[in-house]
């Protein structure tokens, strides 16, 4: 028979994976250290295709890592010096970004979580949940990132969610989404392991720093950004170093707007423009979006989220200012006659200027998402706001599309919005017509069936039928319908002949589809009911008024 008997689990996938405990033992690390190393080195568990084979026949739940990953960690010089924690971190700083992300684009792709984390940590109070330096660093990096986004004008979508504000930007072809919490103090939960968070933050700050450096380089900007005209600042001492600035969080905003003021003059952006013009029409639209608020002058009232709005507005080329007493960095007062939009989030204002719009902040967000300046009438003070839609939803065929979205699409196509009531009435009438037609069809069939049944019953009872010859009617056959029925039957018969496995899959798909349709219908019905209710309310009010 020749050849040795092949032993089980000595080749193939069993040798490609290693369980977590084994890996840990191989590296001679404690679980916490191993976790740290995994986070920093970007080693994560893999789900093997044949778990039982990898698990040497056992079906116990185990986490598996790629053996190659663990070997890589084994050869890592830092593992040997793991105990000397600080040295380790210092060395790691230089090493891990490089190794986890072989290319810049890889790093950029994963920057989402880094941003969300940094923005979260930058809002932490100095409560001892983490080091103050970490908070400051996070703040610095997030401001630098925002500055890059503003300068490169790459913000695409914004969304006011219950959780916070979502931003989506397109940086070097990568879509990056991050979430910023609302400006409130956090009540820190007790069931969260801050050590894990801190390790991640440590990694993320490093990553974001390197990414920022590279991004600034692409814009021909100096990194870290330096403040140029320090003399305008009324802070003590003219030899204000950058480091000092960084310590003061309040100064950051000022720092941000200074960079903005010179970034506008940067020649790089113009070059970019030229290139853009050579490109296709889609690019034109993008350009248009980039200049969405250009030439407009905004003033933020004190109750609106200043940082987020200033960031968004500047991303689209608007001028923004706020009350001088609120924060440094305000460039003009509320009395300025050239202000075009005044963003207010309160029911009414005492003193109003004639030559500017007083609008609620949602207008900015909706306009950005619509890529056009929306009519301001819906967003005036004290007006019930139209729903704020998520820009991230792309409805496919068969999905539920809220009517607001349809209206928006119509606006984007350049159609004038029709008067609401008329439209609704027309729609309703149409719908009713459809219903009637269908009903008629159904009625005819039902009648015939009823007749036939009657006859049959009489026959079965053995009663002599009153024999009578009536002139026959020409039955108008709906050929189209017949064809459809035939096709449906063919399909039904073909489904009968499906293999068991295919049938299972098919049933599953069809179940999902049906559920989807059901949900969509439910939403439509819900909306209809709500609209009717609100209409009735309006009518009542009108009547009352009369």
């Amino acid at each position: 028979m020749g050849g040795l008997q092949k032993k089980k689990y000595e080749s193939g996938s069993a040798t490609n994976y290693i369980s977590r405990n084994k890996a840990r033992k191989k590296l001679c690390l404690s679980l916490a250290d191993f976790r740290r190393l995994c986070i920093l080195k970007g080693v994560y568990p893999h789900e093997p295709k044949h778990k039982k084979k990898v698990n040497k026949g056992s079906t116990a739940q185990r986490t598996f890592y790629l053996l190659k990953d663990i070997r890589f960690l084994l050869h890592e010089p830092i593992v040997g010096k793991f105990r000397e924690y600080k040295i380790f971190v210092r060395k790691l700083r230089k090493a891990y970004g490089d190794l986890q992300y072989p290319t810049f684009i890889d790093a950029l792709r994963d920057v989402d979580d880094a941003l969300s984390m940094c923005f979260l940590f930058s809002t932490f109070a100095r409560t001892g949940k983490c080091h103050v330096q970490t908070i400051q660093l996070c703040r610095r990096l997030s401001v630098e990132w925002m500055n890059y986004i503003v300068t490169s004008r790459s913000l695409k979508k914004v969304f006011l969610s219950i959780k916070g504000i979502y931003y989506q930007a397109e940086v070097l072809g990568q879509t990056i989404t991050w979430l910023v919490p609302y400006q409130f103090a956090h009540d820190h939960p007790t069931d969260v392991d801050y050590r894990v968070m801190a390790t991640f933050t440590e990694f993320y700050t490093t990553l974001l720093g390197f990414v920022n450096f590279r991004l600034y380089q692409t814009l021909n900007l100096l990194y870290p950004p330096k403040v140029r005209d320090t003399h305008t600042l009324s802070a003590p001492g003219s030899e204000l170093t950058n480091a000092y600035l960084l310590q003061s969080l309040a100064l950051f905003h000022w720092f941000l707007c200074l960079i903005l003021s010179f970034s506008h003059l940067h020649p790089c952006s113009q070059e970019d423009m030229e290139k853009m013009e050579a490109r296709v029409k889609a690019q034109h639209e993008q350009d248009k979006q980039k200049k969405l608020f250009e030439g407009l002058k905004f003033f933020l009232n004190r109750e609106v989220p200043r940082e987020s709005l200033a960031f968004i507005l500047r991303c689209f080329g608007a001028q923004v200012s706020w009350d001088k007493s609120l924060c440094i960095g305000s460039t003009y007062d509320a009395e300025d006659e050239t202000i075009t939009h005044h963003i207010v989030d309160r029911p009414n204002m005492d003193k109003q200027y004639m030559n500017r719009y007083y609008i609620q902040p949602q207008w900015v967000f909706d306009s950005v998402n619509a890529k056009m300046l929306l009519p301001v009438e819906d967003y005036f003070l004290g007006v019930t706001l139209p729903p704020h839609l998520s820009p991230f939803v792309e409805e496919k065929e068969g999905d539920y599309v809220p009517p607001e979205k349809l209206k928006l699409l119509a606006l984007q196509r350049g159609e004038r919005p029709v008067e609401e009531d008329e439209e609704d009435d027309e729609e309703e009438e149409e719908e009713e017509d459809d219903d009637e037609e269908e009903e008629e069809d159904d009625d005819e069939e039902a009648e015939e069936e009823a007749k036939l049944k009657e006859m049959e019953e009489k026959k079965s009872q053995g009663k002599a039928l009153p024999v009578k010859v009536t002139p026959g009617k020409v039955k108008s056959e709906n050929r189209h319908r017949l064809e459809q029925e035939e096709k449906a039957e063919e399909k039904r018969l073909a489904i009968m002949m499906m293999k068991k496995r295919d049938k299972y899959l098919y049933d599953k798909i069809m179940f999902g589809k049906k559920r989807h349709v059901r949900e969509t219908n439910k939403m439509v019905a819900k909306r209809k009911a709500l609209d009717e209710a609100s209409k009735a309310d309006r009518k009542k009010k009108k009547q009352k008024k009369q």
Partner: protein
Amino acid sequence: MSARGAAAERNSGMKKTTEKRKNREKEEQQQEEEELPMFDKNADKVGHLDDTDEEKEDLSDSEESVFSGLEDSGTDDDDDEEDDGDDDDDDDGDDASGEEEEEQDEENHNKVEKDPAAGETSLTPQTEDKPAKSRKLKKKKSVTSGGDEEEERGKSERDSGLKISSQVDEYEQDTSDEEDIRNTVGNIPMEWYKDFPHIGYDLDGKKIFKPIRSKDELDEFLEKMENPDYWRTVQDKMTGSDVRLSDEQVDLVHRLQHGKFGDINFNEYEPAIDFFSNEVMIHPVTNRPEDKRSFIPSLIEKEKVGKLVHAIKMGWIKPRRPKDSAPLYYDLWAKEDPNSILGRHKMHVPAPKIRLPGHEESYNPPPEYLLTEEERLTWEQQDPEERKLSLLPQKFPSLRAVPAFTRFIHERFERCLDLYLCPRQRKMRVNVNPEDLIPKLPKPKDLHPFPTTQSLVYRGHSSLVRSISVAPGGQWLVSGSDDGTVRFWEVATARCLKTVEVGGAVKSVAWSPNPAVCLVAISHGNTVVLMNPGLGDRLILSATDQLISSYEEPTEVKDQPVEWSLAEGTEHQQGQRLILTHPRAVKQVTWHGKGDYLACVMPDVSSNVQVVIHQVSKRRTQNPFRKNKGMVQCVSFHPIRPYFFVATQRHVRVYNLIKQELTKKLMTNCKWVSSMAIHPGGDNVICGSYDCRLAWFDLDLSTKPYKMLRHHKKALRGVAYHRQYPLFASGSDDGSVIVCHGMVYNDLLQNPLIVPVKVLKGHTITHDLGVLDVAFHPTQPWVFSSGADGTVRLFT
């Protein structure tokens, strides 16, 4: 402290001597002072005053003593003080600690001295206005100290420079309690003296003899009975004598047993007085003036500062540079090389991005996205993992009304956990178009002819119609029902020509396939009736009767399991000709293709005679099987060859009747076969089963079904092949008859084509039963079906 400490360090030696001297002086003074109250016992006031003085000094020594005064037990306090002293004066070494102890000893000494005088005064209400002090006193009282001798000994020890542990100290002081004990053996187990006549030694070193005790148990008992104080008499182990406890002592014992304080007057719940509260009082808690040394600038510090100033002036010390914690960043990917990607990276699975929010997450969503009351309730009752929406949609009238999201940090943390704990797997999501899964079949349109519509309904039976059969000519139809009748119908007109009452539920009917005779086999109960219905060609009818009557009894009468008899009287007039009485109920009758042989099935597991084959012309019956191979469901003759098919619950066995052997065993893969039909060509068999399946066999190919059809929703009751067209039909309890096109090609390379072509519906379901039997018309592509609703239907 630093100044003090430094000073102490420098002239520790000197200070020691001076302090000692001071202490000595103080001692003397106090002794003098305390002599006064010794004489005048009632002079509480004076003693008290003295006390205060001493108190002051005490406080000046260490402020901790005040703190310790708050605590209850004096001895503990002493320990604490000493410990503190040790801690503070670690640098000072033994000498410093010695000092402390010295002071303490003095204190104790003083207390003892005035004890007799102050002992009672301390508890008098006079002291109440200074609670701190009274407590202090109490503490002191609890600590009793020995006489001058002990004091002296303590001193000598101190001088020797040994550090005395507090316990030893205490012990020495405590000896005063044991003064009256004459036994000097010390604290040892007295058993050691058990075997000696003496119990120890007195102060002079003479033996103390045990008291004469010659009490045996009887004496003991008598004493117990007679002595009223027996219960309060205890033996003093040190002296061996009996001691009668006084009332107070008994009381004390009781109190201690109940866990109370020994002192009856001690109030354990004294109101707590918060001395060092947050309230700012107008007077300081301690009235001790500041030390003089605290006003004098420290020389050592001055020296040190001077040195530092000099070093700064000379430029030796530079101001500390602010630590630049900001990490240095550089272009990490400056020389990135896509070719240098490691093998590890090829297996890299990038973390999936977080799901983007939909409309429902908006702070101001369209109203239809808000949950209704019931939806909200169900959402709340669901497990967080099961929820479709991770958060409850909410609507806020304006942006300023939006609160902070409480689970923000949680979600971030969960994401972190996902990133480093969740196993990643690259899953290929196949976007299957469900239309592609449907097999491509020839259109039924192209497979005509087959029955498509219901054209006739044969009504008349009042109960379920179990079985139908069509005459070989295709003109007549017979149906047997549970109402005990057999009806004969004209196929074309649906007219019932004849109704025969057979007197029992008819299980099966079968028209003889021989066109030359007109015979119908009907089974009800134990009997099978062969009937001449009297329909059709008279010649044939008479030929049939001829055939029956021309029978000649054989000379040898064989013992047969079935009794043959001729029908007479009314039965004969009805058309019945032969009556075969079987041992058990007959379920099925089926004819051989030639029309001479008739097979009957009597399903019974326990019997060997389940199937019998009758030869009508010779009125002979035989049992083909010797052994029982499970319950027989149905049987069938091969249309051409001498094969016999027997279907048991799970298998179909094919026997060669000539060779008398089993040729094949077909595995149906069904749980329970209900019906079977054989293609007129004899190559294909279909089996219907109660578990909704239809198995299609190709006998040449395999013993396993070539195709399993699961097109019925409920149990199959009947299957049938068409004699000419490539059609087969199956009737099921779901009330439908499904007609399939089953084509077998002569070219063996081409797969047989089996396509369902029509679902025929018409029967109503009664008692969960739908279609019970199906039969094809011999020449036309028509199918008959009988149902539980008492009708037979014709589909054309």
